[in-house]
């Protein structure tokens, strides 16, 4: 069974046929977006994190058909006109990844946190990223990156 759906993908309208068995990661792959990627396939690792109507979800547990009419954001949408988002840049500066497979998920959750909390504590950072796994264990650098991004943002805000 396939159904035609329309949604906004990183701010642009798209429409496509989606099978009932496809999840959001499958759908995005067909749009050549590979940043949200399936690893555990069970909602346990966060590698497939995307935002649907502003809420971060596991793409591997989200039916493709559910994207119909939604505002969908992926890691690819964070970069604006060739300029990296503050979190992405902070991840580079802090060296907050090794293999990079988990990175889009962490970046999505970290930017979600910064959208909600002005100056997150380390405990808040950890809580917000607790659903994301990194087998390379870049956790110390990830925490440092999020902290740095928050500081940089508040420095910008004060200028």
């Amino acid at each position, binding site marked *: 069974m396939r159904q035609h759906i329309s949604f906004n993908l990183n701010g642009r309208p798209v429409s496509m046929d989606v099978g009932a*068995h496809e999840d959001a990661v499958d759908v995005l*792959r067909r749009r050549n*977006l*590979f*940043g*949200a*990627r399936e*690893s*555990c*396939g*069970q909602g*346990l*690792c966060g*590698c497939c994190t995307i935002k649907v109507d502003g809420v971060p979800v596991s793409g591997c547990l989200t039916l493709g058909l559910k994207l119909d009419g939604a505002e969908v954001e*992926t*890691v*690819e949408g*964070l*970069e604006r006109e060739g300029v*990296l988002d503050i979190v*992405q*840049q902070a*991840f*580079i*500066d802090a*060296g907050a*990844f*090794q*293999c*990079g*497979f*988990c*990175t*889009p998920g962490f*970046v999505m959750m970290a930017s979600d946190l910064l959208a909600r909390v002005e100056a997150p504590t380390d405990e808040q950072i*950890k*809580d917000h*990223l*607790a659903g*994301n*796994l*990194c*087998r*390379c*264990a*870049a*956790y*110390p*650098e*990830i*925490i440092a990156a999020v902290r740095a991004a928050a500081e940089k943002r508040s420095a910008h805000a004060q200028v």
Partner: protein
Amino acid sequence: MSVETMNRNEGKNQPEVGRDVPRLESRRKVTGRADYVHNLSVPGMLHAKVFRSTVPHGRILSIDTSEALDAPGVHYVLTGEDIRAMFPHPYYGPAFHDQPVLALDKVRYVGEPVAVVLAEDPFAAADAVQMIVADYEELEPVYDEVEAVTSPVVVHDVLKPAGTFPDLKHLHGKRDTNVALDYQLRRGDCDAAFSAAAHVFEHEFRSQPVMHVPLEPMVSLAVPDHDRLTIHTASQSPSFVRMEIARLLGWPENRVRVMVPHLGGGFGAKLYIKLEALVACAALIARAPVKLSLTMEEQFYTITKHASTFRIKTGVDADGRITARRCEVYWNGGAYADIGPRVTQKSGFTAPGPYDIENVSIDSYALYTNRPPAGALRGFGIPQLVWAYESQADIIARELGQDPVEFRRRNLLRNGRPQATGTIMESAAIHEVLETVVERLEWAKPFDRGSGPVRRGRAIAIGFKASIAPTTSVAIVTVAADGSASLSISTVDMGQGSDTAMAQIVAETLGIPTEEVTVVHPDTDTTPYDMATLGSRSTFHTGNAVKRAAEDARERLARLAEEAGMPAQDSYAPAEVFRKRYGMQAGTVTGTGSYIPEYRSPDEDGQSPKVTPYWMIGATGVELEVDTETGHVHVTRMVNAVDCGTPLNPKIVEAQISGAAIMQFGFTMSEEMHFDAGQVTNASFADYKIPGIHDIPPLMDEYIVDAVQSGGPFGAKGVGESATFGVSPSIAGAIEDAVGVRLTELPLTPEKVLRAIRAAAGDPLED
């Protein structure tokens, strides 16, 4: 003793090497645009799904694939016999040619690939797999590595060593044994030394089976093209894949092309042949591209880390000097040897630990059992050994009433002294690594062990490793007419940062910024041979090859300048040389370099003047709290120090140190594959707990001791595994320091801690 440690900002003399260059592919990784095989698809591609054995040991009676073949979207359903009909000897493996592409005649573990469905989409393939029915005559299984030595159950009727390793030759054609390798070392006279010793200690330590779980599950795609075959694969060893697939097909190597983009983690899981033989055979039979992507669950059926049993007997004189040590190590290799025999031998070199011991006897056995195959996992067996010898070091020190650090200081090897293999220690900052941890943990200060239900403890452990020798790396540096340089190597950047570090070597040698060097990813059509990306060998081996290739390019540029009639000088602007020589922006300069370290095979007593080109050293110190009412252990502080020579990129090295330590922390505290009748029962992150962001010790410090590796490129050597060594024994030691109970089996779960506490209090928990 004062210790000089270098932290990342204290600067290095050379501008490119030693600089904290961010990973070259950083931007791709944070934007989700890095290439992984995971992302790849090609037109006309079929999706493979594997049907797996449900019994641990059995003869295959029949496999009924008819219903699956009729399912919608299914093109082929292949069994081992279909493979054998086309490829007469469909067995592979780096040490033994023992692993069939799909099970033949027998199945040897639950989860072994028995048949494969090729279908138009992955869902159709997965549905069809459910329709396959296999019948087995079940055989008695053997699971335990020690039982496997004497068990009447034999996993392989006959041993089939690959022939590439001279030390496996004597095993050829051997029947009725599960022993795939018996490594031994004899030095001095252990028996006499034990009789003369003031104290003799005997213990047994066990480690559990675990899995690497790279977040990008194993994936391979084979694309046939007339008389050639291209394999895109998430592999740490593209050169080996090409050689082994060519051998399997009976083709010359140049008809097989292996390409590897970025890897979503490896840790040893993606070495040698994993899915490549299956997709290659299937693609050639189907005459269509075939992609196989494993699920997270299926990774647990593919490769694991050896469970081990280590019996260690140590004689000590009245002053606390170790006079003799006997090591018996049993490695649970599972159903297929993979690289297990190499783990058994190479780790055997250092089984008695980094101590100066006159009398040593080592027996290390690789065993076949009816479990998923075991291979290399970040440390090549060393973490299992350090777990045992450093646990015992603490036990001995405690019994002798000595400070555990003093006990180690007294016994540690020094440069210039022979190690157990007879190889003389050099460029090994063992003492410096220990003293760094001692100092940073403030060992000399009084330590509050607490009172009440939560007790505190601390401990330090140190380990070392011989590199995997003799192995070859080759590199090509190409300078284009505009002066830009690219580096071709078959070393795989799986996250450890080799692309960046190697580019730094090129940049340093050619006098250009690292950011301007392009690293060509492994493509065996163009990138030269590299043995494999494993065992922390790349920095030293590939690094030396890259340095030589860059030097060669530099010399060729100078010659070109001479031909162009330019005055001799130290360095040239390459673009200008090309323009002068060819009259326009034209030409190419190619420099090549290769490297193989000196190595001498051990004799029958395991003695050799050169078993390794360098030693890797790592130590860990921890402070922790034990809740005596729940058995819960909270590591509050962890200090790791390594000798990695002079780091090429200190910041990436620090991330390697903490990453390795945290991974081993998972293997110490929570990770364990559980089995029921041979079936893995927790093959999911829901039931197999790897460290998350909340689990890491709140205080973690990484130190790189000031050191220079002789013969290393710019004084560097590998570091990817070093910080795993001391983690498990330091935590077990700190638990004993806190609550007086000693655990000898990993992992150190709250249940085990609580049981031990209650047993020691004479109030054991019920089973």
